[in-house]
């Protein structure tokens, strides 16, 4: 069983500490993703393992042998690196470049044997680069170059494969092609693969485990499911993100929502309550939050998309049990929440008997003088499943002065006007 052990590594660029107390172990057949923001030490970690940057403290052990004690050639027989991007400024062919991977095996006074050529050829077959063998490598596309470099790394017959963002500059089809290939090779040849990723989703799809770096330290390490969570992403990357398991692939996927930076453009204490459901409110919640408003929502059924989004965004919400009509109790709670709001928005949500009470609540709030906006992008007839009761309530809202708006932009504009008015009256009050 081949194991790569990093124990207590500290690394410096000059006097700047780039890595601190890095310790972990990887076993053969494992793909480990290295994640972290720019400057967190991802590439430095790879360079430390590849012997390019010697650690000041600690050791890199491959099967209990310190890699820094190996000869250059022995190290190259054990550890191969696929760099992020390579500038080729010369006319070597792809085959020449792949054969360079055999350099550690060739005697100083010798040249490539038939065996070396066979190994290079096999590496090119594995990476589907055989047709490129005679092409000058500087004339290849970015994806082709990357595949040739992977072939070169495989020609080294290493135990450890290090990749620095192997797919960053590639199209989605090449990304998948390269990562599928790497996973296949990793399992088939029992390699240790460490790869730096910028793309969480790619990492989640292909890594067995992950290391999340922050400021040169390991912030989190373990299975990809354990490392990729909302809390870690928030702390390390300073963003809110939704992390979900994809229903088809059963893999985690990450959707970044917003940065944590407070909105300083608009210090406002205006709260907007949204009546929504079925995903009709989600985009609006995000927009309003970004504009600096406080947002509340309800009543929403748990499991409803809007409910999920509200929870992820930290929006106070009145929740109802899944697939259940709104209870009297929650109706009251919702009314209470609406009373604190400066405005109510009713989205173009379909109405059934289960959520009809939300419209009643809106009517009540309007009667108490809270401005109410009704979005009718979709005609009510198409989304009324209450035999006309919902339509009747909406007409009543209109009669009592609710503003009907046709688009999100129009709504945001009207909310802006309302905000100015409220601020104005506030100022008058102070005078």
């Amino acid at each position, binding site marked *: 069983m081949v194991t790569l052990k990093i124990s207590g590594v500290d690394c410096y660029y000059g006097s700047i500490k780039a890595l601190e107390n890095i310790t972990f172990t990887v076993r053969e057949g494992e793909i480990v993703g290295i994640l972290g923001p720019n400057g967190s030490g991802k590439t430095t970690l790879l360079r430390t393992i590849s012997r390019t940057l010697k650690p000041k403290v600690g050791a890199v052990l491959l099967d209990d042998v310190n890699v820094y004690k190996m000869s250059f050639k022995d190290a190259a*027989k054990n550890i191969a690196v696929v760099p992020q991007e390579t500038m080729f400024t*010369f006319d*070597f062919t792809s*085959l020449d470049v792949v054969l*360079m991977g055999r350099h550690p095996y*060739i005697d100083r006074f010798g040249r490539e044997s038939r065996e070396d050529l066979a190994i290079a050829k096999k590496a090119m077959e594995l990476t589907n680069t055989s047709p490129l063998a005679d092409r000058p490598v500087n004339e290849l596309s970015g994806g082709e170059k990357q595949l040739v470099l992977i072939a070169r790394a495989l020609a080294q017959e290493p135990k450890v494969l290090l990749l620095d963002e192997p797919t960053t500059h590639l199209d989605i089809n090449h990304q998948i092609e390269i990562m599928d290939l790497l996973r296949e090779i990793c399992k088939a040849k029992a390699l240790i693969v460490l790869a730096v990723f910028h793309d969480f989703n790619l990492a989640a799809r292909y890594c067995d485990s992950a290391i999340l770096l922050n400021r040169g330290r390991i912030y989190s390490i373990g299975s990809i499911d354990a490392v990729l969570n909302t809390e870690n992403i928030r702390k390390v990357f300073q963003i809110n993100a939704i992390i979900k398991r994809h229903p088809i692939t059963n893999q985690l996927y990450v959707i970044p929502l917003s940065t944590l930076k407070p909105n300083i453009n608009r210090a406002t204490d205006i709260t907007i309550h949204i009546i929504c459901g079925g995903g009709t409110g989600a985009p609006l919640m995000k927009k309003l939050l970004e504009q600096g408003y406080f947002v509340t929502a309800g009543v929403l059924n748990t499991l409803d998309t809007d409910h999920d989004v509200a929870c992820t965004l930290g929006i106070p919400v009145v929740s109802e049990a899944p697939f259940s009509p709104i209870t009297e109790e929650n109706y009251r709670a919702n009314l209470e929440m609406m009373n604190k709001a400066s405005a109510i928005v009713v989205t173009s949500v379909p109405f059934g008997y289960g959520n009809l009470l939300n419209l009643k609540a809106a009517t009540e709030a309007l009667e108490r003088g809270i401005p109410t906006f009704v979005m009718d992008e979709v005609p009510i007839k198409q989304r009324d499943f209450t035999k006309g009761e919902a339509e009747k309530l909406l007409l009543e809202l209109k009669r009592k002065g609710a503003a009907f708006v046709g688009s999100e932009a129009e709504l945001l504009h009207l909310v802006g006007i309302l905000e100015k008015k409220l601020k104005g009256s506030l100022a008058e009050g102070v005078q």
Partner: protein
Amino acid sequence: MNSSQIEIPYFKRFAKWKIIIILLTLALMLVFIFAVAAGPTQIPPLNTYGIIIKQIPLLGNFVGSELSLTEETIVLQVRLPRVLAAAIVGVALAVAGVVLQGLLRNPMADPYVLGISSGAGLGASLAIVFGAGAPFLGLLYSIPIMAFVFAIGTVLLVYLISKRGEGVPMVTLLLVGMAANSFLLAIISVIKLFSGEAVHAIMAWMFGSLATTNWNHIKMSLPFVMIGVTVIYFFARDLNIMLLGEEQAQNLGVDAERLKKITIASATLITAASVSISGIIGFIGLIIPHMARILVGPDHRILIPSSALSGAIVLILCDTIGRMIVRPAELPVGIITSLLGVPFFIYLIRKKKRPISW
């Protein structure tokens, strides 16, 4: 693509390389014979070769003894060492140019970028003006020895100044080399200003000329050039890989720092050895490597020997033309290399379909 489709063309290339080397060697022999026969004194070509063959043990016995002693002296003591010197210098400059362009990954690099030329120039100027070293050696030998010592000393200094921790960044080396060149050229200019009559001798030396070479010069430079070129050749594959950059080279098992030390030291040694006997001959060390790359490709395993042979051929040709063109006077070989070589080089670049790469 099946295995033979990759294998056969690949191993064919080694055969192709052999043919290139054989053809270039034949060309060198032809040029060599032509150059020894050419000169202001008319000596029948057959006599020339008779004189040379006579020197070879066993074979010499078959050559007639009716050859004149004057002719023998001219061929053996004047022409032969001079043509040999041209070959040695041509080989050295071309190979050093290949090494430095490869290591610095810079197509503008030549054997002089690290300060060898100006260092040698300073040593030669000091020898010419002050007769430094002359009392024990005589001027004919004090100039090459001073040039050699100063050339090596300059590169050593440039190397030590560029050193950062355990390694030497190549860009730093290049910049320090350029700075050293400027600095030393300024000193040489000062010496020239105050050197009176000797200024002509300094300028002639700086142009590069093979007019005064004799057998001792050959003995002084040949061992260095042979050893240096051999060492460099054995690092040809490493030099290929260095073209990917130092970090990747190390990941492929090349000890980049050690490679730099060995190849720079070798290139310095062979350049210094040749400059010390010929003065500063420009252009060969810059252009021959590019010509060879256009003709045989970037692989140092063929690039080094074909550059070496081409360097020898071109320099012998240029020196012979310099001797013949304005008889009985001579044009320094350094001028001929530029006047004839540059148009030829531009022709090659224009002929090439792809943009030039190295």
